[in-house]
């Protein structure tokens, strides 16, 4: 009773007025004008640079015109913002508060669109300015077209060493990680020491910086003068070191995947007479695998990038090769190639992870 009477007495206050919009709209227009000025300056600078390097072409000119035109397009949302803000006062005067509020809201939205796209344009222009700075030295240091053309085959060939290392390491990590995960899940008192050792291993190697592991393994094992192990080819040590580190990560991935399958599935399988191992193999692991693949691929992407660290023990991989080229030519373009090669192999995997995650979420929404 009291609740209801309170509600009827609730004070709604005066109807809300349209938000201020005019200043914002004019500000947006001013920002567009400023951006156009900056664009003209930056592109003019770029054009001069290309002319000096005898690189001018009609294609480059066309691209610059396109950038300028894109910036000019910003005038359109800014003008819509101003037009909308002009509709606020007449509507207020006519007593149409709702129409006035709509006009103001629309004006503010167009202003924000202008500012958002304007900020992006400024960032791009800033990037161009950075690379054309100091008479183009910056861009030449990282992206010397001639060096890139000449040395891509050599660097790509050395990149095969990275590919070999991560492929071997990935296979070993899959097996080793599963063994460690199973060791961490052994039940009962008898399993306690093995569980403990596996946990210690995971803790140590998840904390150990990769570069230090590679260094210690790559220099330490040959130094210790062990028979056979002492004189393997260098990439073997790299593979071994990466397997040690990523085995610890991947064991965790496996373990959380197995843990994520509800225990009632284990109970159901066991109650049908399946042994612990049979239940794992037919019921638990197949369900865990689906959830494991995305984080596993993420770890693999990390592993692939970390193959660039094996140069600290002198493996002639792509990074090492590119550093040699870089110091011979006082130019880092060859190193840029390495980075781009890594990006190139990572993108498809990243997209695959995205699709798997999306697929999984769809399944969960559909299946419950």
């Amino acid at each position, binding site marked *: 009773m009291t609740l209801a009477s309170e509600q009827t007495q609730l004070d709604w206050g005066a109807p809300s007025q349209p938000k201020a919009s005019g200043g914002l709209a004019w500000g947006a227009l001013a920002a567009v004008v400023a951006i156009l000025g900056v664009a003209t300056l930056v592109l003019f600078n770029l054009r001069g640079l290309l002319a000096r390097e005898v690189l001018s072409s009609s294609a480059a000119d066309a691209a610059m015109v396109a950038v300028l035109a894109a910036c000019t397009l910003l005038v359109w949302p800014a003008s819509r913002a101003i037009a909308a803000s002009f509709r606020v006062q007449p509507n207020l005067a006519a007593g149409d508060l709702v129409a006035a509020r709509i006009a103001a809201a629309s004006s503010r939205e167009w202003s924000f669109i202008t500012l958002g796209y304007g900020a992006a344009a400024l960032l791009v222009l800033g990037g161009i300015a950075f690379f054309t700075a100091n008479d183009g030295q910056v861009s030449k240091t990282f992206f010397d077209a001639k060096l890139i053309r000449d040395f891509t085959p050599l660097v790509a060939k050395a990149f095969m060493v990275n590919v070999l290392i991560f492929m071997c390491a990935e296979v070993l990590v899959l097996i080793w990680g599963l063994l460690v995960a199973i060791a961490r899940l052994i039940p009962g008192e008898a399993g306690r020491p093995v569980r403990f050792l596996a946990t210690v291993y995971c803790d140590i190697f998840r904390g150990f910086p990769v570069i230090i592991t590679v260094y210690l393994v790559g220099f330490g094992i040959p130094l210790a003068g062990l028979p056979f192990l002492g004189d393997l080819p260098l990439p073997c040590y790299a593979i071994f070191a990466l397997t040690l580190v990523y085995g610890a990560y991947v064991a965790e991935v496996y373990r959380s995947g197995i843990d994520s399958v509800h225990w*009632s*599935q284990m*109970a*159901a*399988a*066991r*109650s*049908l*007479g*399946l*042994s612990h191992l*049979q239940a794992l193999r*037919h*019921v638990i692991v*197949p*369900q865990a695998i*689906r959830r494991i693949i995305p984080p596993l691929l993420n770890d693999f992407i990390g592993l692939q990038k970390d193959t660039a660290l094996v140069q600290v023990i002198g493996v002639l991989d792509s990074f090492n090769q590119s550093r040699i080229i870089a110091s011979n030519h006082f130019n880092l373009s060859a190193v840029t190639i390495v980075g781009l090669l890594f990006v190139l192999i990572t993108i498809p995997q990243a997209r695959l992870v995205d699709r798997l995650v999306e697929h999984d979420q769809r399944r969960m929404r*559909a*299946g*419950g």
Partner: protein
Amino acid sequence: MPLLEMLGVRKAFGSHDVLRGLDLSVNEHQVVCLIGPSGCGKSTLLRCINGLEGIQDGEIRLAGDRVSGPGVDIDRLRRNVGIVFQSFNLFPHMSVLENVTLAPICVLKQPRAEAEARAMALLKRIGLEAKARDYPDRLSGGQQQRVAIVRALAMDPKVMLLDEITSALDPELVSDVLDIVRDLARQGMTLMLATHEMGFAREVASKVCFLFEGRVHEEGPPDKMFGDPEEERTRGFLKRIIEAGRL
């Protein structure tokens, strides 16, 4: 000799005593219904019989052979004692047919063709042979529970334990599942079921056991138990059930 026998069974979770010296026996072809307030240990008892939980004291016997404690061939026990859970627990990554044939193939080493033929015959009996290739998430709760029952039956158990198999179902799906249980009882399967469906218990049970304070507080034929129970506690429990409109 009873087929299934519990003698002084004690089960505690930490310091929480759930079963405190429980005695109960089930003869062949009997249908025993466990009733009692929530938390009185009905599910725990069934899980102990199936070896999913260990017991602290007492013993459980199947056909005269001790099946609790150390040294028991637990997988053999589970081949003889099937259990169906309240929450179905079908394997979501397998089709209905694969769910039913997994244990016969893996555990009984039946040839796949034979296991599938038997599974199809069982699915036909519950009217779900058309769903054999579907995955569990395409089935209604009632259909899933019927598949879960068939999955346990495919192992040819001597005893079936049913733990509140209808309480997760919408009311209109309950009767299909109960029909199967009724069929099983008629065919002479030995059944032990925990249930809140008192009407159904009264209809199919040969013996009703009221669990209270970790023991069988009172047991008897259904007419006696539901019509004229001896014990104060049993009467109180049934009165509340009737007030809730479930009898």
